[in-house]
């Protein structure tokens, strides 16, 4: 709201004319909004904008040989989960467009199992102590 008040109307008009004059301005192309580069949790969200309807593609290799469309519609984000360790390539374009307008590469590398079991053991230990504390406390009480 503060930003809007600070904008000079002449500057806004100048920018609008500029975008109208420059054909195929990059702002009209669908693009990802700050996609993650790495993921260790196993789930992440992809956001995008720049058109009314979109096509989102997912692939693993740089040649997109195994590419498949995973979303087609007007939503501007999606939740990705359940992927195995690998580098995943996502491409976005306006629905019906011939060329892809943006690409994001997300490297999924799950936590090491040793770390996972360390936390599991820590949690199990705390839980057992809790059970013993309540059982013993009840007895003494």
């Amino acid at each position: 709201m503060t930003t809007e008040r600070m904008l000079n109307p002449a500057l806004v008009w100048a920018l609008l004319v500029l975008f109208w004059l420059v054909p195929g301005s990059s702002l009209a192309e669908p693009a990802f909004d700050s996609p993650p580069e790495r993921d260790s949790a196993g789930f992440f969200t992809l956001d995008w904008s720049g058109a009314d309807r979109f096509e989102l593609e997912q692939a693993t290799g740089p040649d997109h040989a195994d590419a498949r469309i995973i979303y087609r519609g007007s939503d501007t984000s999606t939740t990705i989960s359940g992927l195995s360790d690998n580098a995943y390539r996502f491409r976005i374009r306006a629905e019906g467009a011939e060329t892809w307008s943006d690409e994001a590469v997300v490297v999924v590398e799950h936590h090491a199992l040793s770390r996972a079991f360390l936390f599991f053991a820590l949690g199990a230990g705390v839980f057992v102590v809790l059970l013993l504390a309540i059982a013993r406390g009840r007895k003494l009480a």
Partner: protein
Amino acid sequence: MIIAEDVAILPEGIAWGLLIAFSILWVFLGWFLGRKNKTAEDHMLAGRNVGLALATATAMATWVTANTTMTAPQLALQLGVWGMFGYSLGALGLILFAPLARRIRELMPHGFTSGDFIRLRFGKFTWRVFLVVSLIYAFGWLVSLAMAGGVLINALSGIDYRVGMTIILAVCVLYTLLGGLRAVIGTDFVQTIIIILGVAFIAWLTIDKVGFEAIHFNLMEERPELLNLLFPAAIMFLFNNLLFGVGEIFHSNVWWSRAFAFGRSVGFRAYLLAGLLWLPIPIVAGFVALATPALGINVPVADMVGPLVAAEVLGLTGAIVVFIVVFAALASSLDSLLAATSDLVTRDIYRGHIRKSASQHEQFRATKVIVVLLGLLTWAAASYRGELPIIGSLAAVLYFTGAFVASAIWPVVAGLYWRRANPTGAALSMIAGTTLGLVSYFVIGFYVAALVGAAVSLAVLVLFTWVAPRDFDWRSLAEAEPRDTAGARGGIR
């Protein structure tokens, strides 16, 4: 981030109709059930004589929240089968609180809040640390519930997130204001029946329409890790969620106020039964999220997955059922939390710190003002959904508070059972547990914050108690209460 209106399953007219009809029902019940409240004690503790059926229903309904009906599917989508099973371990919080409820009622027959206990047991410094922990948690839970209301209405009907969130919050504030804990418990009973029937209906229809085989095949093809029993983040999440649930229940005044309100021999059985009844609910509710790949639907934000799948599979009928179930689950938790948090603020902040000689009438009035203020604060924070890092999704908000509550498990358990627990150790265990829990939240992920908080808190409290044990006479809790609560109970006995 927003579901466009043209893809919403529920027509806006029907959504508005349901919203208005159930809003009127809850507010009417609030007024009807609370019309006999005459004193602060009536308003805050429903006369201290709630029976087993109502007690079990209120414990279960309060624990079936937006976090169960919406976060359980979110966790199934993010962490797979362990996500929903891990979420169901939250039942152990209720089950393990059963013996604590009995102990609390025995030690403090005239107690009002969990803050009362910590103050009398450990002194003012620990009490203040506990209040900070407790209020941050309560606020985080309130915000996550309000967010869930807005998300639900937006996902199903396309009505703006802020509009839906505002209406649900306003309705809960209004009927909590009118009826106090008596209204909260009464509406919880109705809401429990709606929730159980609705969740079972949705799960049965999902299996019937999509089928296990299709769900399994598509998961293996598109999201194989969701079926992997060695999914690292999910393994880390299991005990984290268990300890988070234990921390939530052990410290929160939502559950303490019920321990004080239930009849003398009711608390133990009510919490045990409620935990056993609650156990399968997250699995049933979370399961529907695993049908996402089979259905080929897009989930723009993870916390929307439950309503989206149900509406997609079941069409208009499903959308209506989901709407009613989640509205009931939300209301049953929001009202409990508003009531219990306002009690805590009234007793421990207003009467404990601001106006120590507050009369019964002043406390009664303060409770109501605080309910409204809590509603306004919650509304302001929930309006920022998706715009601040920790207000990104329901799970992110909820598990942020995990570090706080899990670090309060040990001060409560030690306070109730360890005669020689060290008061300074109790305060420092909460501070150290919360700090390191938050560090792990940001460095590793939301799925370890409570676990780290609980482990650190245990180590600190044991160390201090071992090095500097401090004797405590349990009888001083019961002796201190009648004088202490005279103002709030007034002349009703």
